[in-house]
């Protein structure tokens, strides 16, 4: 239960095409993350799966059944929204139980289901409060609880962590990963944050401009990007793109991850000037401006001191370089 298939989904608002033909299969129990810059259509795609928007063309299949015309409530899915979207007039318990009540489930069963979800998320003491009396993190847990209570075939998350502060974001991220293990449910998660995508996903779908750029496990995308967009999007700090011609390499651009760029004061393959240094304790990021290649990032482990405007030499580790043609496609 819970396999999703999208067949050539397109969506246009008036003359603008937002989704331009997406084919995708999400296996039962898989944690699939849609990632991409804002405006890439990832949220629209999620809303089409939920049934909140109609696809202009194409088929949505849930467990092999076409659900295009099915109302959202009948699709047996649950959604967690960025803004939590709790019902302000209901208590936490009623918020979580509303969907079951609407589906005609008995009161005792609803209570048991809400209690079970509350226990999973340690919401017990908050059950009789209203959303206005909760903190942001608590609200998001209630929203997740509301989704769990329904025991849906498919969980949809629409940027659920972007309204939380950094510490809470990490904690909730771990909690979502734990829930996925415990519930072994199919989950689709939309984010623009590649760290969330890397840490949570079984499989990442990278979207740009309404088109799927690449699908794969996090490490597949990291180690084997199909084009410059995926290469630049996955991994933080961003991959450096150097001019192949100047390095005597094939293709148009050569991609080097910041940790594979060596910095030295004495010698190297090309020269640059330090433009900024970020010390993070465990690692140091040195930004170097090179005449030929532009601004490059070097990632060093441990503490290092470089001063701004200092002349340095850089040498890329060519064994770990990626080569791309003029259209940005990977040369293998």
């Amino acid at each position, binding site marked *: 239960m819970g396999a999703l298939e999208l067949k050539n989904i397109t969506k246009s608002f008036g003359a603008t095409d937002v989704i331009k033909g997406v084919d995708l299969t999400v296996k039962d129990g898989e944690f699939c993350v849609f990632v991409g810059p804002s405006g890439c259509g990832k949220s629209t795609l999620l*809303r089409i799966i*939920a*049934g*909140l928007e109609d696809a202009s063309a194409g088929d949505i299949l849930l467990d092999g059944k076409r659900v295009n015309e099915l*109302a*959202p*409530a*009948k699709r047996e*899915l*649950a*959604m967690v*929204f*960025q*803004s*939590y*979207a*709790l*019902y*302000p*007039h209901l208590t936490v318990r009623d918020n979580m139980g*509303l*969907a079951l009540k*609407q*589906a005609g489930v008995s009161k005792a069963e609803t209570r048991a289901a809400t209690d079970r979800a509350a226990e999973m998320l340690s919401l017990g003491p908050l059950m009789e409060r209203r959303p206005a009396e909760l903190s942001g993190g608590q609200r998001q847990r209630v929203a997740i609880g*509301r989704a769990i209570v329904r025991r849906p075939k498919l969980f949809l998350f*629409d940027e659920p962590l972007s309204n939380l502060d950094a510490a809470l974001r990490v904690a909730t991220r771990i909690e979502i990963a734990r829930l996925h293990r415990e519930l072994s449910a199919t989950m689709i998660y939309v984010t623009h944050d590649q760290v969330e995508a890397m840490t949570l996903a079984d499989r990442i779908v990278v979207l740009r401009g309404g088109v799927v750029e690449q699908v794969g496990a996090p490490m597949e995308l990291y180690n084997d990007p199909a084009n410059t967009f995926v290469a630049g999007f996955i991994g933080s700090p961003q991959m450096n793109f150097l001019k192949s011609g100047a390095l005597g390499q094939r293709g148009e651009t050569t991609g080097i991850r910041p940790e594979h760029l060596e910095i030295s004061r004495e010698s190297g393959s090309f020269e640059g000037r330090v433009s900024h240094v970020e010390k993070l304790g465990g690692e140091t990021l040195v930004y170097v401006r090179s005449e030929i290649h532009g601004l490059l990032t070097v990632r060093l482990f441990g503490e290092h001191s470089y001063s701004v405007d200092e002349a340095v030499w850089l040498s890329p580790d060519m064994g770990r370089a990626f080569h791309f043609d003029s259209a940005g496609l990977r040369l293998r």
Partner: protein
Amino acid sequence: MSARMSKGRTIAAHAVLLTYTLIALFPVFVIVINSFKSRKAIFADPLALPMPGTFDAVGYATVMKQGDFFLYFQNSLIVTCASLFCVLLFGAMAAFALSEYRFRGNTLMGLYLALGIMIPIRLGTVAILEMMVASGLVNTLTALILVYSAQGLPLAIFILSEFMKTVSDDLKNAGRIDGLSEYRIFFSLVLPLVRPAMATVAVFTMIPIWNDLWFPLILAPAESTKTVTLGAQVFIGQFVTNWNAVLAALSLAIVPVLVLYLIFSRQLIRGITAGAVK
């Protein structure tokens, strides 16, 4: 503006507000004090307060004796409350449809409905009267309720649709996923969130209806359907005007509208400050 104002500015601001309040309340005040004075005293010194020598409740006595006056009150209340109900219900529903659903001609429909704000309904009096005669609604309260609902709807739709656009889409979508019908979403999720706007619309709709003389005079002048404002006119004659009774009737007419205003005003203040203090 800084949170702490200098003393001088505070005093100046209060002086301006007090002056405005006095000017606004002065006519009401004069009507109320004179309604408690004898006819002679009204004309001798209109601004004097009712004293033991000049106190006279003859106006109220006359109004009460004129047994129909309770009927007039009742008519006014029925017309105002029923129109208010129609305006709020249908206005909110139309506003929800305009702000929530994408359909062909949405913008055009919104503009068409807003047109009523710019064109006074009284321009159509003759046509309205002809319509009411044709449908046999002359001299019924229904005629007034229909006209006032039409009169109130454009502004209601305009204000409410702006407010409804601010209600979070996620909330409505969460309701849809949980299996709430569009009606439940409208009544139990959206309406409570735009309550301050509803109160604002209620006050702006209610007062002109309660005070209107024009349509009751034209559409429902019969004894059994007279409203308070029209009823008070019986005391104004071509040659003799019973000022005591007119002033008493007007004073009494203030009371119900004041009560309704007080009910809505707490919500209204929240409505006005909604954007400012979130």
